[in-house]
């Protein structure tokens, strides 16, 4: 093993890390906003909205991200007759994919709140919006932190698929370096270590939060 390839291409890797983090960040943000919306409309008292939410979740949960990604990048422009850049295609695909999962987390989070809370809020005469905003969501968010963290970790891993549509993320750079230097083992080991360095602290944190919440309940 000769890790000099890694150090001598540190700048490329670093650039890849930045791209990966950038897409992770924006697609987590996009996915959470979209996911929250879709999760919440599934509780709305309007049937078609509920179905729409269900359809969205089922659609994006059940297709491999790789297919969604290729589809968004190649098929969508032809369908809609628009231009879409790699960056936007990647953002859209990752956002919709993760939104399906975030939506499920939000739905489960809201459902996990004791119905007695809704009863108490209803008995006070609160409207649907007031109950959600003041009573349900503040409690649900707390419980959702651990699954949200897990899903966001997934999201960082998912961005590695962006390399297939040649967004120059970490894995893309790794592929480039390895094909230039013929040293893939070192490069992929380095990539694995980089992901561990970023994600293990996060999962550990998430476990700690989970444990604290469990003991506080």
């Amino acid at each position, binding site marked *: 093993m000769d890790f000099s390839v890694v150090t001598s291409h540190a700048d490329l890797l670093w650039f890849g890390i930045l791209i990966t983090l950038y897409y992770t960040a924006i697609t987590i943000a996009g996915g959470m906003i979209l996911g929250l919306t879709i999760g919440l409309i599934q509780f709305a008292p309007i049937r078609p909205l509920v179905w729409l939410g269900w359809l969205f979740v089922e659609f994006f949960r059940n297709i491999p991200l790789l297919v969604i990604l290729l589809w968004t990048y190649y098929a969508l422009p032809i369908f809609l007759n628009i231009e879409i850049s790699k960056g936007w295609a990647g953002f859209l695909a990752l956002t919709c994919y993760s939104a399906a999962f975030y939506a499920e987390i939000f739905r489960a989070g809201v459902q996990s709140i004791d119905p007695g809370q809704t009863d108490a809020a209803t008995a006070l005469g609160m409207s649907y919006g*007031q109950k959600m905003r*003041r009573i349900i969501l503040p409690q649900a968010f707390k419980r959702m932190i651990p699954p949200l963290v897990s899903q966001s970790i997934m999201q960082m891993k998912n961005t590695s698929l962006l390399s297939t549509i040649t967004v120059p993320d970490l894995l893309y750079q790794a592929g480039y370096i390895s094909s230039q230097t013929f040293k893939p083992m070192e490069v992929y080991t380095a990539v694995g270590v980089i992901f561990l360095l970023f994600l293990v602290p996060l999962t550990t944190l998430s476990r700690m939060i989970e444990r604290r919440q469990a003991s506080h309940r």
Partner: protein
Amino acid sequence: MTEKSSKPLLRIQNLCLRFGSREVLRGVDLTVNEGEVVVLIGASGSGKTSLLRCINLLNTPNSGRIDIDGEIIFDATADSGVSRIPIAEVNRIRSKTGMVFQQFNLFPHMSVLDNVTEGPVIVKRETRKEVEVRARELLAQMGLEGHEHKRPAQLSGGQQQRVAIARALAMHPKLMLFDEPTSALDPELVGEVLKAMSALARSGMTMVIVTHELGFAFEIANRVVFLDEGTVAADGSPHDVLLKPEHPRLKSFVNRFHETADMLRPFLETR
């Protein structure tokens, strides 16, 4: 106990409720006058909780009619069909009743004070300052001075239930509904909640109470209503219903309590 008018505050007519194919309420008629304290008893599963939840539409009945303080909150009498009352209207009438639950159902993410002020501030849009003054008074009446800034989880069960009562009272309800308010409490803490309820009754509040504390029922109620399989099987003075039960099911129901009460004889004899 206190002065009672005969102006009906709550009128329930021929109320029916089904869960799926299960008929839980089968034509309940009940009128509660202003200032009256009505205790609802009945075996487990007889529909007591369901009836209480219908009064403020936490459960939506399948037919019948409910009016509170002269305003119709639900109407689906056989001939008229369900007449849609706008949800905002329902919420307004709903806040004329205050409900206290078995499991307290306090908002765990808010301080005790915020639990009490939440309703008036958010629902009635009163100014927070004024509401806080009133909330502190109510909490003081409930013997909870000094606990205003604690979280519900830091209080004992008895204290939590008294906060729940204060929370309901802060909305200035005309009618208070209690669903087994002491059955989730440690036995030693039951007394303090019953005391608070007695004080409330003496102040003239109209109350409908579901409870298994028959001694308390006897003491506080103007009327005791026995619910059996979703119908009113007995309705009368505490003395008639609890001490001279006629309905066979009521008899066996009350007798079980007599047995447990019997065991307490030695305690009464020494005092």
